[in-house]
């Protein structure tokens, strides 16, 4: 019993569960208290001690099944004794025939009912697979490792078949049949382990994980190449990100709110307690919130980046005192109202339909800036952060950079987000070089991760 569980523990550790010694001790102590011949109870004790999160539970269940069901011959215990002798003999003779290759020996051990070394062989493969950082090259390593293990399994299968047919004269056919069934089942389960590995969340909680992968994947896709379905998915991702960001912010404000002691107020209140300052008052330090003005180029490819930024900004609205947004192609229109009256995603659709903009016109940044100067210049002040999203391609018209300069003078910060690849910024009709000089900051903004970095630096 003791050995069995210790073996199970080392197998579990080999598959990556973290089990501490104290947990093993607890487990033994608890097993004393229950009727461990009753399997649900036995499993419950092991599970309660060894798998302490949903994720681990999945691995645990699989391992438990493998260890206590598949690899044991309980249904025919009476027969299993002679059979297991045979198994040992066969495996030994096979092992001596081979030069010592760790993987092959591991497979043989697995066939003999000891999965530990097989797991250890498998582990580096999947551990390397976990580093999802790089591109193709990092994927290949674990694949090759897996492949070689797979080959060893096949080799062991072949060797066994050869051995069995060679022993035709020495063994009665019933035993040969039983042995073959046993080995086939174990080989199959070894293969299954190898190929079906690493799917921690089948079914119910799949959503949470795939969210992470989803995010990783979506985060790197260029805005312009998102499919309609991905745009849908993006909203959910943004929602989650925004929620997390808000949490961080909330905690920060909670701490920051507490300023120095407000002596006056404390003393005034202490009068009620005979001059003893029972209740202390602190000066509240209101967090500095920025006012945001966005200017979005809504022509063609730029729009996709702009819509996501608007989505995020408006989701984070309480982090700013005010968000005012304008869209332009050639000529400018304020769309703040649309956002105030409608839910974010509806609003974004509405802008495309209703804003007073000539969507087919050639983009003209100069005209846009002139209109902004004429109508809205007074909304910029030292608390304002001006965010411009655009590729800076002004179709060779007057860039009017002196107006942007003036806008910069009036606002706290001017940030330009460019959804184009930096490589193309200064080519053709792009005025990026001109505009760059007038901005505090110019950032590429091609995918969700870059956008997120920007939003974080903006609110944190």
């Amino acid at each position, binding site marked *: 019993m003791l050995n069995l569980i210790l073996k199970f523990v080392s197998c579990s550790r080999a598959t990556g569960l973290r089990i501490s010694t104290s947990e093993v001790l607890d487990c033994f102590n*608890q097993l004393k208290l*229950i009727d461990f011949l009753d399997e649900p109870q036995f*499993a419950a004790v092991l599970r309660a001690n060894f798998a302490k999160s*949903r994720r681990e539970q999945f691995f645990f269940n699989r391992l438990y099944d493998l260890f206590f069901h598949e690899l044991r011959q309980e249904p025919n215990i009476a027969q299993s004794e002679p059979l297991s002798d045979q198994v040992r003999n066969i495996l030994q003779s096979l092992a001596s025939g081979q030069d010592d290759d760790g993987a092959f020996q591991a497979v043989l051990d697995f066939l003999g009912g000891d999965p530990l070394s097989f797991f250890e062989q498998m582990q580096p493969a999947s551990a390397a697979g976990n580093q999802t950082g790089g591109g193709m090259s990092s994927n290949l390593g674990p694949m090759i490792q897996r492949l070689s293990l797979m080959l060893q399994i096949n080799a062991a299968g072949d060797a066994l078949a050869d051995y069995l047919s060679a022993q035709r004269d020495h063994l009665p056919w019933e035993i040969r049949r039983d042995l073959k069934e046993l080995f086939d089942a174990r080989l199959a389960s070894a293969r299954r382990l190898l190929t079906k590995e690493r799917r921690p969340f089948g079914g119910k909680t799949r959503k949470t994980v795939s969210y992470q992968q989803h995010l990783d994947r979506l985060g790197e896709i260029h805005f312009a190449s998102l499919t309609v379905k991905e745009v849908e998915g993006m909203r959910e991702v943004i929602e989650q990100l925004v929620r997390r960001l808000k949490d961080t912010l909330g905690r920060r404000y909670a701490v920051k709110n507490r300023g120095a002691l407000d002596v006056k107020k404390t003393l005034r209140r202490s009068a009620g*307690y005979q001059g003893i300052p*029972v209740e202390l008052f602190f000066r509240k330090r209101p967090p500095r919130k920025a006012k945001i003005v966005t200017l979005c180029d809504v022509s063609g490819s730029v729009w996709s980046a702009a819509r996501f930024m608007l989505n995020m900004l408006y989701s984070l609205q309480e982090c700013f005192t005010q968000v005012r947004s304008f869209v332009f192609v050639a000529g400018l229109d304020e769309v703040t109202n649309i956002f105030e009256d409608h839910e974010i995603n509806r609003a974004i659709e509405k802008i495309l339909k209703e804003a007073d903009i000539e969507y087919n016109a050639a983009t003209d940044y100069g005209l846009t800036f002139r209109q902004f100067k004429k109508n809205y210049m007074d909304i910029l002040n030292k608390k304002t952060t001006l965010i411009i999203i655009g590729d800076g391609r002004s179709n060779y018209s007057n860039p009017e950079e002196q107006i942007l300069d003036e806008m910069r003078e009036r606002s706290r910060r001017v940030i330009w987000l460019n959804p184009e690849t930096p490589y193309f910024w200064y080519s053709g009709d792009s005025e990026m070089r001109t505009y760059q000089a007038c901005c505090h900051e110019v950032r590429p903004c091609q995918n969700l991760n870059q956008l997120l970095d920007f939003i974080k630096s903006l609110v944190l």
Partner: protein
Amino acid sequence: MNPEPSNGYTKEAGAMKFKSVEHVRAGLAKADYICSKTIATVVFLAQATQKPVLVEGPAGVGKTELSKAVARSLQRPLIRLQCYEGLDESKALYEWEYAKQLLYTQMVKGKIDDVISGADSLSAAVDRIASQEDAFFSERFIQPRPLLQAIIAPHPVVLLIDEVDKSDPEFEAFLLEVLSDFQISIPELGTRKAVNIPFVFLTSNDSRDMSDALKRRCIHLYIDYPERDLELEIVKLKIPQIKSRLAEQLIDTIRKIREMDLKKKPCISETLDWAQSLITLQVEDLSAEVVRDTLNVICKYRADVEKVKEKLEKLIN
């Protein structure tokens, strides 16, 4: 400051214990909580080893209810600490009652004059008062919050620390001390050790992972959506007037809905709500139309409702 002795919890009742896993199951069933063997085993072990239970699982599968049921069946009072972001020690442990202290100072002012009368110097007077200091920092002026309450309670209690994942990491670290030693240090009074080790439940909704240290000190229990038969039993127990045909239809439908990719899957409490509303509407037989009309009870998101409606025909038959 002690749990009121008048609420019927006697010492004898507090000494009640589960004797075996089956006993747990029967006891919980008597307290209107039907559980699987896994749950019963964990509860039994937690009691036998005096370790806290960390209960995880989707919302609404009866995590909180489990601790209530244990309290009911052991006839122990339940002390509940609801965690939230920003929960600190003064809300969870104890607070000095400054106002009461001041009031007492006022009332015993004459006495203070007696104490310091005859002191030759100011420092002598201060010394005399200092020697009486204990009078003001005694248990009389302390307001125990849930954790301290659970520790100093003269009878064994069930302590429920609800939604521990919502609390800050600092608070979690602080819980570690309390949960491993069952003692609390109050600087002015010294260390208070638990009279009886409380039966502790921590619940978590997976909104963040708990630290390994905390997990190690607890027995972990994951409660999932129940098996069909178990859920059927629960519905019949909680809503006895339901007909078994309807109950079975109901459970089958709910289980099919759970298999769909929804934002929020219906849980046991929603099953019960639904059953209750079907009873109120005097429904005898579950038809697609009835489901459509009562869908709002099960699905709490509009998108989910739409999704279920689309597949309604498939669900019923």
